[in-house]
């Protein structure tokens, strides 16, 4: 299928540049005869053309850098991402925040050729960008540029990736920004909920839950950033994907020129992934926030991975639970009027166990009915097969909207790289499509029974203990050192 639009965006750009007003037509001149309007049940639709993957080129440089190139000439932009096998899950727990600071200061601290301030100036004058960041299980440096400026921008991008100098004053600025965020991290109840729920599930000292603290920041100096960068940023630990308005030969030449001499690391060794266990099994916890009118609720337990056998039926189950026609939305929101926001998701990760979470916000007074309502729905999914209509809705939604997975070449490229990064087959999404088409109500119930574990569900409420009905029982203090963390008893 092509990515045709009413008119070419490129034509608009040309027009924007004051040359021609080409192809910009809303309607033609001929007015056709009107068709008769029909109710939706009387409509028939032509089949969609089959999804065709845009062509791409994958190759490897002698230094081990894997490159993906995918052309897209619709807009005069080129963008690219270097995906690096790194993550804050590999930073020492005495230095939580190290990975994130490394990502930030790689960009802000400048390169051997340009200071951070010079880069800001150069990039912004060209309406371009280079950004770097390290998250929990991956790091990236990315750029975007107008076609005409790509040689320069790619050079700056390569500098940030391979030769950052970590200017000390920019590290100090980034640390002071981090301290400011620590001070403000209890301003937002949703943020408290997300953070503390993750701690309950993975444990406060798990790399998947641990927080940057004043003390961990104090232990991070420039030398730690330099070392962390040196440990992971190597061509043989990186893949580069570029999409946009380029000529492939020129782009390959540019990559060779800027990254060909990047030295690989011999005997590259990566640390093992952290172990994951659910540390809190069951229980209802309350974080008192007397200012709130609503309770922020999250219920869940440890989940699974995308490669698990039950990934497909559980994903279909997500459709059964959510959105218009979904059980939680229909029952808790529309029929009971208990919430504006209510959700339940099996939320797997690619290479470590994710979570199963449900929740939302409800007024303090209805906290208990809201939680009970969600628990009932979870239970019902385990005990009763979903109806044929629900199965059809869930499968059709996934299959009929499949085309939206291929809206732009950039989207396709980034998915391909994600699969490659985590070691999934390149055609994973098509395998998924086939499996969804074949999934049955029995598969789904089996998956719900095998994976939803009511005994393990942890419930966390951030809310106002004065107005929750029935009121929480006497406070039972909980260790863990967080001052927001006590009174773990609600009568559910």
């Amino acid at each position: 299928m092509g990515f045709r639009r009413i008119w070419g965006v490129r034509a608009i750009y040309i027009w924007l540049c004051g040359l021609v007003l080409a192809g910009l037509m809303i309607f033609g001149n001929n007015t056709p005869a009107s068709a008769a309007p029909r109710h939706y049940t009387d409509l028939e639709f032509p089949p969609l053309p089959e999804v065709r993957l845009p062509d791409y080129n994958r190759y490897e440089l002698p230094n081990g850098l894997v490159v993906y190139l995918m052309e897209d000439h619709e807009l005069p932009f080129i963008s690219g991402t270097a995906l690096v096998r790194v993550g804050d899950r590999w930073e020492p727990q005495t230095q939580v925040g190290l990975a994130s600071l490394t990502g930030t200061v790689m960009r802000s601290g400048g390169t051997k050729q340009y200071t951070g301030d010079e880069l800001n100036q150069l990039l912004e004058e060209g309406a371009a960008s280079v950004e770097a960041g390290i998250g929990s299980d991956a790091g990236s440096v990315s750029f975007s540029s107008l076609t005409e400026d790509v040689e320069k921008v790619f050079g700056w991008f390569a500098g940030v990736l391979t030769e950052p100098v970590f200017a000390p004053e920019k590290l100090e600025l980034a640390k002071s920004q981090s301290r400011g965020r620590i001070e403000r991290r209890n301003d937002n109840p949703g943020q408290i909920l997300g953070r503390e729920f993750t701690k309950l599930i993975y444990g406060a000292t798990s790399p998947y839950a641990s927080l940057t603290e004043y003390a961990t920041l104090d232990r991070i100096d420039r030398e730690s950033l330099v070392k962390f960068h040196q440990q992971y940023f190597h061509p043989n630990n990186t893949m580069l994907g570029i999409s946009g308005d380029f000529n492939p030969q020129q782009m390959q030449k540019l990559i060779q020129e800027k990254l060909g001499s990047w030295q690989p690391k011999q005997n590259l060794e990566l640390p093992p992934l952290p172990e994951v266990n659910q540390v809190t099994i069951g229980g209802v916890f309350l974080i008192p926030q007397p200012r709130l009118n609503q309770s922020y609720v999250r219920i869940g337990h440890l989940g699974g991975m995308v490669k698990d056998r039950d990934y497909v039926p559980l994903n279909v189950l997500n459709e059964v639970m959510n959105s218009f026609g979904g059980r939680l939305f229909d029952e808790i929101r529309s029929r009971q009027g208990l919430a504006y926001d209510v959700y339940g998701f099996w939320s797997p990760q690619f290479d470590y166990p994710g979570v199963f979470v449900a929740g939302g916000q409800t007024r303090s007074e209805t906290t208990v009915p809201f939680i009970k309502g969600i628990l009932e729905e979870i239970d019902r999914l385990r005990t009763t097969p979903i109806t044929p209509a629900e199965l059809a809705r869930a499968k059709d939604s996934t299959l009929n909207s499949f085309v939206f997975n291929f809206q732009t070449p950039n989207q396709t490229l980034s998915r391909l790289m994600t699969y490659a990064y985590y070691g999934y087959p390149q055609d994973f999404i098509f395998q998924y499509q086939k499996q969804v088409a074949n999934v049955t109500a029995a598969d789904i119930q089996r998956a719900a029974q095998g994976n939803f574990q009511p005994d393990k569900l942890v419930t966390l409420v951030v809310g106002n203990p004065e107005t929750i009905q029935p009121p929480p029982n006497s406070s039972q203090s909980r260790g863990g050192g967080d001052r927001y963390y006590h009174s773990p008893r609600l009568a559910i």
Partner: protein
Amino acid sequence: MGKTGVAHFLEHLAFKGTTRIGTTDWQAERVLLDQLDQLDGQIREAIATGKDPKALQAEFAQVQAQADQYVKSNEFGQIISQAGGVGLNAATGTDFTLYFYNLPANKLELWFSLESERFLDPVFREFFKEKEVVLEERRTGIDNPIRRLLQTMQDQAFSVHPYKRPVIGYEEDIRNLTRQDVQEFFETHYVPSKLTIGIVGDVEPQQVKQLAEAYFGRYTPKAATPSTISPEPPQTAPKEFTLELDHQPVYVEGYHRPAINHPDNAVYEVIAKLMSDGRRSRLYSQLVEQQQVALSASGSNGYPGNKFAHMILFLAFPKPGVSLEQLAQSLQAEIIKIQQEPIDLRDLERVKKQFKAEVLASLGSNGGMASNLVEAEVKLGDWRKLFEIIDRVEAVTPEDIQRVAKATFTEANRTVGRLVSKK
């Protein structure tokens, strides 16, 4: 008056279906919905006159349960998602309500059928339940101190214009809304002359036109009611307010500015970008990097809308240990600089190029393009004006910036809001 929030409430109810969608038996359901309206009126009257509403409330609950038997909850949205629709949602702002979703291109006619019926023949069922949902949505806003700060800003800065009010409505007003109120608002404002449609994707314009005539040609022509919105008189003295909340401090200041169709609009766009777009912007480079008084600082036009005269806001989060006064002084110094020193041409070129690239990038997705075109058509009277703004920005001079900054950033035109931490 007294009916704030009705536009937003109607937007929620527009997902409840029609006489044919969302019900198993409209004729039977209809009677019950009318009964519910009557009972609701009687309950209000009982409460107002000090009578015991319990019996009426019990009857209400019973009738509501009966009515629920006929409801196919969220069938309208379900049809769309089952057909492969994604991103189904709607948004109500100060200036317009927008309904949007993406469908695979082969379902074009489905969009016409569903969307035309949606407003040809709507039924505002589950009205009382949805009112609770809206009240929940409102609570989420109330519990957010930043939103409260901004809400108070518009309330204080505007004296008569509807930009004073929260889009979601005052609680009392939402509670008092009836199905009749929504129906009246619908009949007054959901007229074909006020409806603009944008479709972008792999479709043939000829076919789109044909379908538009077939499906939306069914609407009865009706002139839009002339607007009775009073213009906001000029602010003549500085205003300020302080909120004490359980939250770290935040500073905001706002200045009135003319509407989006004013010839100086492009100058305001340039000023906002110059002040806060990117790491080279004045606020980031000065307040965050150099002086290190703020964790972040930004300026933006279009608060709370932009069809009418509105505000340009500057919002800043102080670094720990920095007082709001100190932060305000640093911000003020940057504003004075804009007024008194002509902007460096290199900076101006940078901002212009960034602006152009952003407009272009916003057209990168079909959804983005559709909403931009519709917005330009509705607010500026012509979708082509979306591109004219590029030329206007291109024409902005350093003198324009100083002239507009001097006229706008005056003490009398300023409203200051402070959020301070509750002790």
